């Protein structure tokens, strides 16, 4: 099944009528208003918006880091949130369903590259052998297997970002949330990272939502979501 077909059958992530308000009474601020979105497996979408528009809040809601007020979140057909989380252990939910990529790699400095990737499968209860094999496969896929035993400070910025992407894929998540992954990079490296994310989305069938301000990479998305004053607008564009 190709990406288009998969997208047509079942979205990897579907968000319906999601709202989030901070504060109460007169000081209440509604940051997200009736958000609806869906992303297919293997698809990479951009999430844009000015500062304070609610991008990070939406990412935190989708990442089960903060609680939306109302709405429904479905990952791969499984409803995880329906006016409340179905699973009490949010940490386990994140561990099993979501991959994260941050502005900076935020790799664990006291582990080597392989351990950074293998740690997540281990948390899922995989054996050490399975976890290390998964890490090795991913590092090879991302072309950093030759740096598998290197400590984080010995890796270049680009290598660190590849290891971070491998970590995000390690638990085989249906959804990857990327928070401005190209922000600290120059335009050439930013393009390389985005190309890598597209490749990984295709290979892993994960839906990737990329929060970005980077004008250079916006043309790479076929679909964009723009947040303005808490309202999400979908845009289609001809990707490069």
């Amino acid at each position, binding site marked *: 099944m190709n990406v288009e077909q998969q997208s047509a059958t079942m979205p990897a992530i579907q968000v319906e009528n999601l709202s989030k308000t901070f504060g109460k009474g007169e000081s209440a601020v509604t940051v997200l208003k009736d958000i609806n979105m869906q992303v297919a497996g293997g698809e990479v979408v951009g999430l844009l918006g000015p500062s304070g528009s609610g991008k990070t809040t939406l990412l935190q809601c989708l990442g089960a880091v903060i609680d939306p007020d109302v709405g429904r979140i479905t990952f791969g057909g499984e409803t995880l949130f329906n006016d409340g989380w179905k699973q009490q252990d949010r940490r386990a939910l994140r561990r099993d369903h979501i991959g994260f990529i941050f502005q900076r790699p935020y790799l664990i400095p*006291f582990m080597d590259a392989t*351990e950074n990737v293998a740690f997540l499968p281990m948390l899922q209860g995989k054996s050490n052998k399975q976890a290390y094999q998964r890490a090795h496969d991913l590092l090879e896929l991302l072309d950093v297997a030759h740096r598998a035993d290197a400590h984080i400070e010995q890796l270049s910025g680009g290598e660190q970002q590849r290891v971070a992407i491998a970590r995000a894929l390690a638990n085989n998540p249906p959804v990857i949330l990327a928070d401005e992954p190209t922000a600290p990079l120059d335009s050439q490296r930013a393009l390389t990272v985005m190309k890598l994310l597209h490749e990984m989305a295709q290979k892993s069938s994960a839906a990737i939502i990329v929060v970005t301000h980077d004008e250079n990479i916006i043309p790479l998305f076929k679909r964009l979501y723009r947040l303005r004053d808490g309202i999400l607008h979908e845009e289609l564009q001809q990707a490069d």
Partner: protein
Amino acid sequence: MISLAYRDIGNSFGRYLFTGIGIGLLIGVTLTIAGVFRGMVEDGRALLKVADADIWVVQQNTLGPFAEPSSLPDDFYRGLLALPGVDRARNVAYLTLEIGSDTQRVRVMLQGIDPDTFLSNIIAGRPLSRSHYELVVDQRSGFQIGDTIKIHRHEYRVVGITEGVRSPSGDPMVFLPLKDAQEIQFLKDNDALYRDRKKLRDNPQLNPPNNPQLIDAVEQSLFSNHRVNAILLTTRAGFDPDQIAADIEKWLRVTAYTKTQMEQILIGNLIATGSRQIGMFLAILTIVTAAIIALTVYSMTQTKLKEIAVLKLIGTSNFLISRMILLEALGLGLIGFLSGKLAVTYWAPLFPKHVVLLMDDTLRALVLTLIICVLASIAGIRSALKVPPSSAIGG
């Protein structure tokens, strides 16, 4: 599962090790101070053991030679020997002074004893056998058999070495014949003697022209010493030392202490102030050590809050994060304890005071260190658990 603590320690092992050693030096100082206190107690007990007396007879209403001046006539023991139950009575005299050569001066406590007194702690040489000019010294004084030591006007030869015999203040004990000790106690230099004699002879009441023998008698009385500091009694089997001591006090108008009472004076009373002071030092050092471990663990946690947020975000349980911090704190405590124990083992013999390192104290220090580490890690764990995983998102 990857051990977070092991990996984190391994990543900055040098810094971790040196921090542990720094804490270890503090633990070493704490153990040393405990050892000094134990040394004081052991010295007191060793002194009583060497004295080998069931009853200590001292000047009336005094606490004995180690706590207060005590003086008794040296022929007083004859009356004590006449009491039922008293097997042996020995005069002893104590005085503290510095002896040795010009280059090596040692502060010692001299104990004047009868030459035939049995000394149980002799490890080399022989006991005193002559009435004059012989010494048996404790090995901590540094003197060797055959050394000649000048004390005031006379020279003494070292004939025996004892082990572990010290005064309650930690000075090595030196045994010498009682008569020599009595002489040293009252011995004056020649100039002082000349001045005192001249003063006496210039006094017409003590040196009348018609009675030349009077001044000789006065000088004889003033310039010789027939007093001792205590008399040590050994009781016969079947007699109650408490009863004998009570009888002595009742009939002979002196004070008599049993061995238990003297131990209480030596260890309970005499060392009490020192032990309170040492207790304060120990308490302060324990608090300082705890504060340093807590601060170290806390700052170690603070430096990796972002990583902890990421760990939480990707699904690491609080248990794993808390275990990392706790194990790092315990590791720090163990390195500290081992290096402290090693340090104190090497530096204790260099202390002028007797430092006794008991296994019980060592084990107590280990348990206390680990408890401190557990408590100290609480601050770090609390700050780690407070970190919201959301702080990893949004820069």
